[in-house]
């Protein structure tokens, strides 16, 4: 169930250039059912900024009622969020949307988790849950440059982890797709989150595979009421049928919606 709660900041750490890891405590953690869901954050009272910001859930610790997010402090809202300190509160609406289906793979299968930039965070909780299920996970994480890389070690502990950077400062030079091609990786399922061009590349390359993609779209309400985040469906790409990224997604099966 969607809840609105003033959550308490437990920790805020800068983990890469402009990238922050934020741990919040709140009862709504117990409503989080799937990795890949997100929360809608009001980072300050009043109008600085006015709208909520959608941020993926990166890790859940239900025992402590904690959850983590990882975000890039870039615009007005995320910069403000990065100024929060332990003990401060954040107004959280969530959990929202439908995440990655973890039961689409079985023990012993291989799952390829492909993340780009700030699309990487939701893959962490996903990976943890898959590993717990006995699924073999392989991570391919793309970043702009070395200073933007985060969570490499943490992912490595869960499974093989490959890094690509656009400028080659760490790992493979180029895109995540270059890594996949190079390594000739095989997998039973692919989960991905990141920039649309990356998702498109993956979708067209693995038409025959089970692929789940997490989308981003500018949002108003975040709960399905305002039609801000709508996309066309794959079976009616020019027509009237639609899906809402916030409430039908953000994770869709490849082909289900038009990227």
């Amino acid at each position, binding site marked *: *169930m*969607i809840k*609105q709660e003033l959550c308490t900041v437990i920790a805020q750490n800068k983990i890469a250039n402009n990238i922050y890891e934020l741990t919040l405590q709140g009862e709504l953690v117990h409503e989080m059912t799937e990795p890949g869901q997100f929360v809608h954050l*009001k980072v300050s009272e009043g*109008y600085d*900024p*006015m*709208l*909520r910001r959608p941020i993926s859930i990166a890790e859940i610790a239900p025992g402590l009622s904690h959850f983590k997010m990882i975000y890039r402090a870039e615009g*007005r809202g995320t910069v403000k969020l990065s100024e929060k300190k332990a003990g401060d509160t954040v107004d959280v*609406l969530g959990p929202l949307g439908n995440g990655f289906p973890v039961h689409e793979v079985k023990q012993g299968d291989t799952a390829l988790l492909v993340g780009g930039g700030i699309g990487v965070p939701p893959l962490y909780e996903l990976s943890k849950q898959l590993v717990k299920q006995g699924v073999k996970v392989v991570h391919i994480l793309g970043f702009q440059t070395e200073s933007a890389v985060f969570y490499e070690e943490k992912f490595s502990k869960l499974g093989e982890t490959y890094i690509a950077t656009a400028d080659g400062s760490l790992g493979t030079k180029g895109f995540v797709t270059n890594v996949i091609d190079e390594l000739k990786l095989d997998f039973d399922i692919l989960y991905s989150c990141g920039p649309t061009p990356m998702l498109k590349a993956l979708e067209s390359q693995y038409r025959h595979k089970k692929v789940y993609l997490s989308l981003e*779209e*500018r*949002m*108003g*309400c*975040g*709960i*399905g*009421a*305002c*039609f*801000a*985040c*709508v*996309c*066309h469906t794959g079976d009616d790409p020019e*027509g*009237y049928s*639609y899906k809402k990224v916030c*409430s039908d997604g953000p994770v869709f099966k490849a082909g289900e919606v038009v990227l």
Partner: protein
Amino acid sequence: MSSLNISLPGLDLKNPIMPASGCFGFGREFSQLYDLSKLGAIMIKATTSEPRFGNPTPRVAETSAGMLNAIGLQNPGLEKVVNEELAWLEQFDVPIIANVAGSQEEDYVAVAKRISAAKNVHALELNISCPNVKTGGIAFGTIPETAKNLTKKVKEVSEVPVYVKLSPNVTNIVEMAKAVENGGADGLTMINTLIGMRLDLKTGNPILANKTGGLSGPAIKPVALRMIYEVSQQVSLPIIGMGGIESAEDVIEYYYAGASAVAVGTANFIDPFICPKIIDELPELLKSLGYEHISECTGRSWKKHEKAAYYCS
């Protein structure tokens, strides 16, 4: 005794607070958060005769104390709205105000005729002010004669009272209000969004795919108040006010300007519980200001009234 119940053409409301059209869908999402029967009424998303997908995304952008939207009247079309959405809404004890849109007169008339016959639709809100569609919409909302004729046509077929939603993007709002009054409108709702724009610092392009969009939220409240203040003194129709309302105090300010009920739009996105919160807070606020009933506040800024306020700081 309630201090909030009000009667307007077609509408006997528990309270004068309702979500604004387009900011509440057809209520399904919010029904998971609270009991919709708490609301005075619900203004549902604009309905057109045929389904519409609307504009490409991005459809929203943030502004200082406001937001832009260019949804483009996406909706499942008249049939589905009546058979699925309105039928579903019947489970709640809440009157529906159906927002009627179209590209041409015939569209409006067709939608108005059919949707006004739905059991729980107690009034229509004629959307002649949507800034986000190429044809229709705003044209009807900026030419007095066109607005008047459309109102007349819709009145002829509607089985419930017709409120006309005015666009603020006009030189003379009073002239528009008078035109639709002459066309037979039963009430006014105002304001729809101001046309605005934002550009992306990095690309130089408009942020919205539609380029321009409708500005809503607290930023536009002063404009809405001014227009309601002007129109309420010149026209005898009741006004449902909207534009940036996010607190019980804002509601009173709208009443002072001349409103007889209010709608809450953008604020639903920021605090999805805002409508019930305002409904809960209003009686206490009214009391602290010395009013017995909210209707005493309507037009207080320009109506002569006895109670003189005396303050000493």
